């Protein structure tokens, strides 16, 4: 093979691998990304049952009810709308009424959000950024939810630093 042919082989291989990778990425981006919504956005957009999304908002005070076998129901509110959530499993250490929460799952046919993951990334002063942004946008932001981004543990890379997901039994 001449130098030129060799180079063409190389470039051909590289392009083939890149094309495959691009195909994989586009395909995966279509299927496996998850959108973020608040209860009022859910009401506006009419998200259908079975479509996965992330729900964010405040856990309504007095709404948390524990059932048998670690089943929990609570209501997520964002000031103008509420949405009932059902979860089965262990809630994160910092899950509290009146605090921000992000849950991942899908609506069922009766309009209840079935969460299979509840994320908690906040302490008594910090709340999930997405929730804070959504509340601010709707004018329900109170100053005592003072965001403290630097509370995120310092050194790089503790996965604990960014989210502490809890996976329920529905996995």
């Amino acid at each position, binding site marked *: *093979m001449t*130098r030129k042919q*060799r180079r063409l*082989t*190389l470039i051909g*291989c*590289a392009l083939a*691998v*890149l094309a*495959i*990778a691009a195909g*994989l*990425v586009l*395909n*995966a*981006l279509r*299927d*496996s*990304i*998850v*959108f*973020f919504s608040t209860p009022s956005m859910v009401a506006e957009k009419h998200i259908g049952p079975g479509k996965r999304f*992330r729900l964010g908002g405040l856990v309504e005070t007095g709404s948390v009810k*524990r059932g048998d*076998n*670690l089943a929990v129901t609570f209501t997520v509110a964002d000031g103008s709308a509420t949405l009932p959530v059902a979860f089965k*499993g*262990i*809630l994160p*250490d*910092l899950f509290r009424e009146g605090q921000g929460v992000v849950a991942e799952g899908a609506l069922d046919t009766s309009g209840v959000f079935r969460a299979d993951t509840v994320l908690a990334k906040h*302490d*008594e002063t910090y709340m999930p*950024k*997405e929730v804070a*942004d959504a509340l601010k946008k709707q004018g329900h932001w109170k100053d005592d939810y003072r*965001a403290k*981004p*630097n*509370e*995120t*543990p*310092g*050194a*790089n*890379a*503790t*996965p*604990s*630093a*960014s*989210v*502490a*997901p*809890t*996976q*329920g*039994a529905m996995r």
Partner: protein
Amino acid sequence: MIAESGHYALVLALGLALIQSVVPLLGARWRDAALMNVARSTALAQLLFVAASFAALVTLHVTSDFSVLNVYENSHSLKPLLYKITGVWGNHEGSMLLWVSILALFGGLVAAFGSNLPLSLRAHVLAVQAWVASAFYLFILITSNPFLRIANPPIEGRDLNPVLQDIGLAVHPPMLYLGYVGFSISFSFAVAALLEGRIDAAWARWVRPWTLVAWIFLTLGIAMGSYWAYYELGWGGWWFWDPVENASLMPWLAGTALLHSALVMEKRNALKVWTVLLAILTFSLSLLGTFLVRSGVLTSVHAFATDPTRGVFILLILCVFIGGSLSLYAWRASALKQGGLFAPISREGALVLNNLLLTTACATVFVGTLYPLALEVLTGEKISVGAPFFNFTFAPLFVPLLIAVPFGPLLAWKRGDLVGAAQRLLAAGIAALLAIALVLAWTYGGATLAPLAIGLAVFVVAGALCDLAERIALFRVPLPISLRRARGLPRATWGTVFAHAGLGVALIGIVCETTWNSEYIGAMKPDDVAKVARYELRLDGLTQRQGPNFRELLAQFNVSRDGDKVSVMTPSKRNFTTRGAATTEAALLTRGASQLYISLGDASADGAIAVRIYHKPLVLLIWWGPVLMAFGGVLSLSDRRLRVGAPKPAKAAAARALQAAE
């Protein structure tokens, strides 16, 4: 006083770095050895001052001087000494100081041990190193000064985030930073080569050990971080495809590619231009990781907008260094002469394939990590890209890579024999098929993909061993001769065997853990029994205990298997009063490479407690794999051939003998 001297030392280090950025370059231009040698002394002095600054911050934390804002926010007088020290880098300011300390350390090492480098190359390398250092000193001094005082010192500090009060914080960030920042050396070498317009095989021989050191630390750092997340977060996950983790995975992928392409350059003088580009990209990805984690852009692009100084500053550093070095590359790369020819099927070809797949895999991680950010900036829509994305893109790219791994070392340089290599890998192929058949039979009717993945992993491990057996002619010559050959093999060859086998070992762990992991979640009362994977766990009781700066609820479990008592496990839940935060301390029981894992949830009013119990088969292999890889790296590093300029006693002695014979 200590805080002020620490601050002052940092300012002096900045001054030295500025001198080091300019003077050696002028020296190289005017061919003035004295000016070029300035780099050496300034690099060493810089290390001294930064070390002093770092020591000052450690002293402040250890003595709990709450008049310093950083100590007040992250420490507590009752905190154990270990966490007072590790708390230094458990926050933004302190971790940036650790970052520059390690940067200065690497600069100092090049200055101290680089006496065999050509003078002008050393001057260029240290000058580029100083550019990076100056930028980060400025960043710390302007936006994140750890030595700020509080006007009215409080009596007690706010304590360190409880999740970080763990031995993991002592090991993981320094390791990871040694990796990240270690790649700055290969970056500096690459930029120096572009500035000088000269690059040769000797250059690769100098770069490779530094890259290897950084790679070893990064490998261990990532593995350590993963294990830390596994036992500290309390739900048994070990990799989340979280942006923070991806930020460390990307430089690792690019660094692994760099390690292999530098090999081609060293041995065959080929792939020069590509190697230089990889060196630049690897450190750029390290910088990107620093940016992603340190700017707050990950929590939200809006957080970035509300506290802009830090984010914008790092973004600026990022743009200047990545943009600058890539422009320099575009301008000067054509000046680097092309090297040796090789056929597509050859050791070089295999290494190119390795590079291609690794960088593409790295690119998919890059897209998955940054796409949500880009989308939010452009459309305001918030999305998250989770594990499925990476499983669908990353895994398919790694499968061909893993199949190719055993072939690489068996192909000859320049022109290889694929059929011959395949013949020599026959044993590995048979082992892989046997493994698939065994696993399929054992888990009849279960997952189909998992046995295939196990087969692939066995192929990688057996392939590495085949390579070794081939080299020492095992079973073809008497055993003592084989053993003597094994002793005589270059350490780098042993390193390859261990590193490649480690890859397979980790894959076995990953597949077993994700496929055959069993779990129990439920509320348990004292004397309740839970059954998980042939183990019976009885909850004996719950007790309260007071720790140094927390209260904890301990649960005691009696573990038995088939009626025989195995052990006692005591998971706990800690409440840290100062921050009002709780953490879950999981209990782990190791049996061989498998683990039982218990973490506690909330206690309810009727005396029951929510419990999560996992049995994770062969889970430890996930971390033993990277440890094997790092061990391979250390072996390779200790290879005499990598120590440039070291006299070669064997050859010298042989030459003398030859002369004597004449």
